[in-house]
C-alpha cells in the first residue's frame, strides 16, 4: 500500500480534488433544482 501511495499520490490527489468538485457541484441548488438547465446543452445544440 505504501508503495502505491508513494508512486500514485499525484493521481490520488487529483481524484480527491475532482471528487470534491463533483460533490460540491452536486450539492449546489443549481444542480439540484434545475438539473436540466445547467447540465443539458440546451439551445446551443446543433
Amino acid at each position, binding site marked *: 500500500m505504501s508503495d502505491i501511495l508513494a508512486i500514485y499520490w499525484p493521481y*490520488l490527489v487529483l481524484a*480527491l480534488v475532482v471528487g470534491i468538485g463533483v*460533490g460540491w457541484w452536486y450539492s449546489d441548488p443549481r444542480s439540484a433544482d*434545475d438539473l436540466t438547465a445547467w447540465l*443539458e446543452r440546451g439551445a446551443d445544440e446543433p
Partner: protein
Amino acid sequence: MILHFLEVWLLLGTVFAGGCVLGTMVHSTLGRGQFAAAQALVADTVGDMIDEIKYRLGVGPEWRPATRSRNGHASERDDDDWSSAVTDAGASLENGTTDEGQRALAAPDERIALPHPDAFDEPVPEEIAPAPLDETSMMRPATLPAPRTGVPDNLQRIRGIGRRNEQILHELGIFHFGQIAAWTPAEMRWVAAHFTFPERVERDDWVGQAIILASGGATGFHEATERKMRALHKDEDEA
C-alpha cells in the same frame, strides 16, 4: 500485475468517493455560514466562464443575448458592446457606408423630421408624470388563480426552469408562456425575488424564451427536452 492494477483503481475510486463526500460537506458548511455569498459568487463566475467559452466558440444559444451578467445587472463590457455597435452604425450612416446611409444621404428630404430638442424641454405635469423607477423597483405581475382551460403550459421547456421553479411559478399564479412573455423588468424582479438564484431569470432570458414559445416557436432547449422525453417514452414502451 492485475491485482496491482485493481488495487490502484480501487484506491482511486475510494479517494474520489471520499472527495465527493468532502465536497458535499464543504458546500453545506459554507452555504450556511458567512461565506454563502462568496460561494454563490464562485458558482456564478464558473457559470459565466462556461458561457464565455461557449460564446467565444460560437456555440452560444440563439435566443439568449450575448450578455453574461451577474446578479441581474448588465456588465460594463456588454454596455460597451452595445454603445460601440450603436456608434458604428451611426458612423456608417453618417458616412454613407451602408445601403441605408447611402440612401439617406442621396435623398435627405426623405429623412424623418424629428421635433426640435427644445420641444421636449417643457416640464411634464406631475399628475401624468410617471414615478421614477430605480433598478430595485418591483411590481407584481398579472397572475391567475388557476391555469386557463385547466391545463398549464409546460414551463420546464424554458431553460432555467426546473421542476421546483415551475412549482414556485404555479404557486405565484403563473402558468402560461404568455404571462412570462409579458413581464416588465419590474415584474421580472418581483418574480425573481422568489427564487434561490434570482439572477438566472434575466441571465437565462426567460422572457425571451417565453416569447418564442408563446408564439409557437421552439428553442433548442425545447428540442433537447423533447428528444429526451421521446427517448424516455421509447424506453418505457420497450420495457
